[in-house]
């Protein structure tokens, strides 16, 4: 007489909490998600193909448009990969300024994540607080390179210019005030009963599954795996700083929140040390105007705010790469989503997408 049926429902691509053009095809048993098909590619621009016809300088602006919430890291990974390919080392001062801008970018990116994630779950105030501080960082970036989102801030072999006068003092000012501001967010969330109810025990991803799925970044560390590329395979000058790699225990959304909050504090620590040690000197190494790396191939990774950012370049000795591959953390982390939401409520899907912190420009490339 009566029977129940599975129901297919589309979430996205125009859904505010899928953070862009992500489309999920959920198969529901009542309100329980039994299966998820992740449909991506709405923002595919074929950047890898485009790079094959551009010279090495022209590619850097393209990397901005991949992960546009943390474009500094795309720049950083790209220029470091080409430098590794060429065997060039940038001057000390450039390395330190790269670390400073990159860690500021990590905080800015985590602030976007925190604001939007809290907004998805229903806490609106946090969003305004987060964007207040993010604005300060964007002002710093604007003073440094003229752009607020797509920076194109580094060059192969160093930096295009030094920071403007007074810039480091402004960074110091930010480093001073930010810990207090962060406490404000935490008073709103960390012990908030609604927040705990929405995030505790949601979206479990165990350590062995996380590694198997290739999940990296805060999502992996929330599962208790101590893997941070700044530690495991130090690049730039990261081996000179003291910082902790925060780890979670319960592999859930709440732990991912805690890990990211702690990461911001550690970024402040790195910033303090980098500002202290910042040497004087040149910011650009001697590199030819026309970049022609020798024939060879490298795969280089950096620790972005979302996880491991990998760059694979095959060079045949020409002034353009033969093959350019971007290994984006968003793309790989998203793959674990069906596993994480299986058996949970539809409303929790939003609470799981949030801490995965995907950027669709990075997923689709």
């Amino acid at each position, binding site marked *: 007489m009566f029977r129940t049926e599975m129901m297919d429902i589309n979430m996205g691509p125009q859904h505010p909490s899928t953070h862009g053009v992500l489309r999920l095809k959920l198969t529901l048993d009542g309100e329980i998600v039994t299966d998820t098909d992740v449909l991506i590619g709405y923002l595919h621009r074929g950047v890898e193909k485009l790079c094959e016809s551009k010279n090495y300088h022209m590619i850097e602006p393209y990397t901005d448009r991949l992960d546009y919430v943390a474009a500094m890291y795309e720049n950083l990974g790209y220029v470091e990969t080409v430098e590794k390919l060429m065997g060039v080392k940038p001057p000390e001062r450039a390395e330190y300024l790269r670390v400073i801008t990159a860690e500021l970018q990590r905080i800015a990116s985590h602030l976007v994540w925190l604001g939007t994630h809290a907004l998805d779950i229903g806490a609106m105030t946090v969003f305004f607080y987060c964007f207040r501080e993010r604005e300060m960082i964007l002002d710093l970036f604007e003073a440094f390179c003229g752009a607020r989102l797509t920076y194109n801030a580094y060059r192969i072999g160093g930096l295009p210019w030094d920071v403007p006068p*007074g810039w480091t003092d402004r960074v110091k000012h930010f480093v001073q005030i930010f810990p207090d501001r962060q406490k404000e967010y935490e008073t709103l969330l960390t012990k908030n009963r609604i927040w705990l109810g929405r995030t505790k025990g949601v979206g479990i991803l165990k350590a062995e599954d996380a590694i198997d799925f290739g999940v990296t970044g805060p999502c992996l560390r929330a599962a208790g795996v101590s893997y941070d590329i700044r530690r495991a*395979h130090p690049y730039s000058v990261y081996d000179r700083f003291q910082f902790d790699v925060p780890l979670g225990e319960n592999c859930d959304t709440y732990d991912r929140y805690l890990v990211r909050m702690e990461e911001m504090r550690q970024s402040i620590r790195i910033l303090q040390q980098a500002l202290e040690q910042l040497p004087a000197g040149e910011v650009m190494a001697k590199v030819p105007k026309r970049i022609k790396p020798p024939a060879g191939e490298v795969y280089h990774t950096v620790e972005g705010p979302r996880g491991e950012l990998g760059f694979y370049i095959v060079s045949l000795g020409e002034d353009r790469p033969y093959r350019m591959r971007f290994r984006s953390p968003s793309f790989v982390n998203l793959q674990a989503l069906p596993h994480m939401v299986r058996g949970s409520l539809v409303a929790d899907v939003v609470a799981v997408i949030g801490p995965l912190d995907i950027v669709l420009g990075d997923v689709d490339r």
Partner: protein
Amino acid sequence: MTDEEKPPSTPPGPPGPPEQEKAAPAPPPTPAAPRPAPAPKVNLAAEVASPVFDALKAKFSEAIQSVSFYAGEVTVLLEKDALLPVCRFLKEEPSLRLDYLSNLCGVDFPERDKRFEIVYHVFSIQHRHRINLKIRVADQEPAPSVVSIWRTANWHEREAFDLLGVPFEGHPDLRRILLTDEWQGHPLRKEYPTRGYDRDHLKLR
């Protein structure tokens, strides 16, 4: 929004010498510059020691076609049929534990007999070492799927199938991922025009 809006918190003291950054092209060009311009030429293709490669050589010497070194990375070209046993060994051997497949992608060399190179960048979370593996396949020749070893390969292989047209044997769900299902051709192949087919109206100005 100007740069002067947020002055550093300094007391409004007497207008002494302005706090200059000790950075930019400072007037006294200190002779002890941290890095004199021409860096010594490094041999990028120098051989490096790799415990992973040593273990691989000891166990699968007949499966290794060639090995290359570049910028401290070791890249091993394998026989196609040996890929799955090698990967399983690398993942399960306790002293190696290459449990994390970071990246998988294809490279197109149309002038070769076996035109596609499939590259695997494998890391160990625990031991923090790595190795790059490669196999070569011809057009339409299926490559063995490593999804049974690392689940993360699923989407990477779908992407390689989508953009290069490499079929993967044993893949659980091989369909296009980034492009639409009715897309013609595979854009990352070298003969595919950057602007795509039937795009004559998109001329550069």
